[in-house]
């Protein structure tokens, strides 16, 4: 089985989010970049298929050279090789089109990705990739087993879960549940050394036209201070929630 894991290179959760150039660009100064946490669940599940079922695992991202350390980290965790599509990831649809070329050229049976990236939160790339390739696709996946070319999948629905069955090829957008947080791996020294030798192929962009454009960013407006209510004055809390906030 050939697996492709799509990796997004994102600011660490705890990063301060700032913008530059008159609020038109994300300011990456001093920001630590990581593998998108949702993609890490996907990568970890892929490692399981590699170790237990002999799958090969390729990781891919769309981005400039600054994303390479993130790909190397995925290689250090255990992926076999990496592909970087040399294009700015400005628009989810364009990214999906670039990745569709990677999938076509690589003949992958299974494409794993996170359900969204924690920077742009578009939640669109895996679904668009599936539509472009006409592959089966499951979003918000919380469980995946594969036997031969048959997959058993569970996905989170509002207030429950749904079990699905499909044949490969298949695209999965995963989240926690695909693996648990305790299963996530920190690269060890041997993995890091080996990652340096593993192939990282750079492919040129297939030049899709951008379909959207971010023209500006705004930070969350400063929050007014929390109104403290005394623990023995719950009538006041109820009155504030009823009369001021109007939520009860």
């Amino acid at each position, binding site marked *: 089985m050939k697996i492709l894991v799509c990796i997004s290179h994102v600011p660490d959760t705890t990063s301060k989010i700032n913008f530059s150039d008159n609020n038109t660009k994300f300011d990456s100064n001093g920001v630590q970049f990581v593998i998108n946490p949702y993609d890490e669940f996907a990568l970890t599940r892929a490692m399981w298929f590699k170790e237990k079922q002999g799958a090969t695992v390729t990781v891919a991202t769309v981005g400039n050279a600054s994303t390479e350390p993130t790909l190397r980290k995925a290689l250090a965790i255990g992926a076999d090789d990496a592909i970087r599509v040399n294009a700015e990831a400005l628009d989810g649809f364009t990214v999906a089109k670039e990745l569709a070329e990677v999938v076509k050229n690589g003949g992958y049976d299974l494409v794993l990705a996170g359900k969204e990236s924690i920077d742009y939160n578009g939640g669109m790339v895996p679904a668009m990739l599936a539509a472009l390739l006409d592959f089966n696709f499951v979003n918000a996946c919380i469980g995946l087993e594969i036997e031969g070319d048959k997959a058993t999948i569970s996905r989170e629905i509002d207030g429950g879960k749904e*079990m699905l069955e499909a044949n490969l090829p298949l695209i999965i957008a995963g989240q926690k549940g695909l693996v648990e*947080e305790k299963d996530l791996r920190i690269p060890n020294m041997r993995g890091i050394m080996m990652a340096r030798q593993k192939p990282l192929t750079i492919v040129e962009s297939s030049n899709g036209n951008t379909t959207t*454009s*971010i023209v500006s960013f705004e930070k969350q407006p400063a929050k007014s201070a*929390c109104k403290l209510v005394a623990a023995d004055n719950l009538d006041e809390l109820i009155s*504030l929630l009823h009369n001021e*906030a109007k939520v009860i």
Partner: protein
Amino acid sequence: MSVLVFAESSEGKYKKTALEVTSYGKKVAEQLGTNLVVLTINSSEATMLYTYGAEKVLTVTNDKLNVFNAKLVANIVKQAAEKESAQVVIIDSNANGLYFAPMVAANLNAGYASNVIALPSETSPFTVKRKTFSNKAFNNTQILTNIKVIALAKNSFGLVENKVSGTTEEFSPVLVESNLVSASIEQTSGKVTIADADIVVSGGRGLKGPENWGMIEELANVLGAATACSKPVSDLGWRPHGEHVGQTGKPVSSNLYIAIGISGAIQHLAGVNSSKVKVVINTDPEAPFFKAADYGIVGDAFDVVPKLIEKLTEFKANNA
């Protein structure tokens, strides 16, 4: 020309988000000087959609669509968009909406914007405001294609009545093939889901153990709220994973979020920040949640929550 909204129903009944996207779609149609068309599947209740501004309702009735299949629904929406010459297609942000909306965009070769929280600030170029960086910021996105697909964030626009005398039309799209099969669905019935809830009551490690969740459930009951928990609580197995809210758990965008014994780690706040009003109850006045909350009580949950249940029960009885 038209604006097309997909209104999701469950067992023939519209979800609240379906009425929200219809309300929103009506305003977008007004901005563009065109009509609102609402597409529904296996629901005959069109009158409700007229109330929120649907000039035309397209109803698809087919037993093959009783179980949701993203590929089929995405293709039906595409066909409806083409039939109605839709300029803008609007879908909600339920689990199913988020699943198939990007497929509609890819099918129509259209630009897609999710997490949209307001009406377009401009219609030419078509510009929408979206949540980004896990609720830490917003961006203004132009959609550059002729057809635009947007997913409206939950609870961002609300329900706005706009009664029109609409018409209903049967629509019989071609159904595409899919070999992705739904084997079974497990749904926790009788409980308010986090996704649909207006109010969410959430407990953290401060509650000391799963045996103390009775009061959380009771408080949720009084408020008609869903129950949720922080990540450590679900990791410890005190509560099911499905209740974990926060960055890697479920996002919450309720009207009211009550955090009890939750310190407010950045990952937790990222997931609950888009709730409109946040209340925190915590013994530690230095807990980071106090910086994110609107109202706070410094106090012991074991002392405050039972009293709050009592007071709220009284309040509800007087305001019924």
